[in-house]
């Protein structure tokens, strides 16, 4: 009996089933539901990408990084600059250097480039900064958000400063987002259940023991940080071409906070947990947005999220799933 179950499990991996279901869902949404709902779903998926990628950085290794918005900013601007048609570049950014002003990339390569540059930034910064502990790392990464913001604001030549870039082409269809979501989850899943991932989770429990056993703790931290930053950069590009606007203030500490909330509620280290939590919380955010406008009660959504988090922290610190995954998704029984 057991043997048969195992066989079945390995023949059709549950994740693939889920991916397929998701695909069917996307088809339905795209074909049958309104553009508004499609965009809401797009945002929800985008938050899921962000949450899972933050989980790689924070959840697997136990690092406490709030830096995702910084990498989103980097990736978002790079992608935007590359995708922006030449004639618009002339209009928005007349002083752009020649080699950049003539570039006009298509969507996918530009997004990937955004992610890569963000990853490189993460690599450079990560090496010194990841040595900081816990909340010192947290504050340093918040500092990073501000540093990136300031750099973006003060280089009008390249970024149009505080005004940002608007009128970006709407290129982020729900298909693209789903594509990237699948990739992110796949990478995260593969990583978590690889030997790297196991070591990372071990690091979370007891770093000293791990390094005594020979693991290169620093290298793993940087790896997790860089991978997370790549997907954050990608998300930045996706975000910019979903909302068609990007400004230095698009990606703020409160975004980082909301992502952390998703991780805490879903359970840091649990991919399925962060998917569920991201889905739930972003649904809340998107649902409350029009409500806030209608009632004139701005900030209500954020207040709600903060209160929920405080409750969770006080009463159930492990979140929904802790470090584990939903039972039916697990490979090993």
């Amino acid at each position, binding site marked *: 009996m057991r043997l048969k179950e195992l066989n079945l499990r390995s023949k059709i991996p549950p994740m693939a089933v889920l991916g397929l279901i998701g695909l069917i869902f996307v088809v339905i949404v795209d074909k049958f539901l309104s553009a508004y709902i499609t965009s809401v779903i797009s945002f929800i998926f985008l938050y899921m990408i962000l949450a899972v990628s933050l989980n790689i950085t924070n959840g697997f290794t136990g690092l406490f990084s709030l830096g995702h918005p910084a990498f989103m900013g980097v990736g978002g601007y790079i992608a935007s600059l590359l995708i922006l048609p030449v004639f618009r570049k002339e209009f928005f950014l007349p002083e752009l250097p020649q080699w950049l002003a003539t570039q006009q990339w298509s969507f996918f390569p530009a997004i990937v480039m955004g992610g890569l540059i963000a990853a490189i930034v993460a690599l450079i910064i990560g090496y010194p900064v990841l040595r*900081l502990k816990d909340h010192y790392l947290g504050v340093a990464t918040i500092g990073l958000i501000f540093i990136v913001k300031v750099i973006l604001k003060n280089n009008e030549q390249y970024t149009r400063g505080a005004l940002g870039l608007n009128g970006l082409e709407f290129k982020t269809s729900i298909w693209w987002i789903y594509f990237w979501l699948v990739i992110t989850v796949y990478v995260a899943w593969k990583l978590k259940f690889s030997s790297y991932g196991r070591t990372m989770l071990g690091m979370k429990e007891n770093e000293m023991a791990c390094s005594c056993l020979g693991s290169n703790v620093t290298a793993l931290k940087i790896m997790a940080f860089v991978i997370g930053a790549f997907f954050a950069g990608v998300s930045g590009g996706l975000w910019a071409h979903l909302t068609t606007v990007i400004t230095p203030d698009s990606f703020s500490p409160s975004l980082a906070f909301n992502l952390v909330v998703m991780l805490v509620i879903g359970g840091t280290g649990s991919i399925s947990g962060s998917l569920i939590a991201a889905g739930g919380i972003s649904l809340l955010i998107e649902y409350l947005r029009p409500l806030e406008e209608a009632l004139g009660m701005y900030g209500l959504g954020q*207040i709600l999220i903060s209160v929920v988090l405080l409750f969770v922290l006080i009463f159930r610190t492990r979140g929904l799933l802790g470090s584990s995954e939903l039972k039916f998704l697990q490979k090993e029984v």
Partner: protein
Amino acid sequence: MYITELIINGLIQGSLYALIAIGFTMVYGILRLINFAHGDVMMIGAFLTIGLLKINLPWQISMLLILLVGGAVGFTIDKVAFRPMRGAPQVTGFIASLALSLLLQNLGILLFSAQPRNFFLPEFFRKTTLVFGLEVRYLSFVIVFSTFILLTILLLFVKKTKLGIAMRATAENLQVARLMGIRVNTTIMVAFVIGSGLAAYSGMLWGGRYGQVDPLMGFLPGLKAFVAAVIGGVGSIAGAAIGGYILGFSEILFVGLLPVGMSGYRDAFVFGLLIIILLFLPNGILGTSEEVRA
């Protein structure tokens, strides 16, 4: 002449940061908790002052009231948010304080809208006098001198009184402090009350100086106060004050001495400084040795 102006501004800005940094470091010293909501208490103080000014209370009473109400806010924050989390890992408190901060900011937006409001300074503070040939507002004197006075009182309290020594003991070793019969929850509460009172007071002065308040005004100064505390050595009250002045002067000099195009980089400079100090001088100037690096 220009240098004089920079120095005076540095003193003023430094005082404002010092007031916030002190409260920050007091709580951190005992709980090892970075309290993001601290900056927002400063914002509360600013808004409260606007309310008090509207009802035409004499300014001396307003100042006192702000200190007291700020203390009450601190007491509430401790009781409601942080006490239930005693014993949880560091990061939990950090996240919680971030949650609290966003909560307060958004409550502010909800109640007062995100638009900045004007801070109407009473006649007395707008009068000026000449200092080294510069017109300096009475407000500026009040800022600098009241900070010095409050700082002195606090340092005496912490040095000489039994409760002050108890606070220092609790900051060093909470468990052993309990062995002395010290009620640590009370000590922590006192740290919150004093710190928050000072932060609210700073908010009042800040509003007066810059003429504008908005619900988000506290977050960045709160973070910078953390930088100031780190410069001076977290846990040290004198260090926080020194750090506040160093930060205040650095900011003013940075903007004042560098070419105009660079002045937008001021905040990046502050956070860059934070990262450098955390990496190379983690104990700051006066701090006690602590685990900053993994």
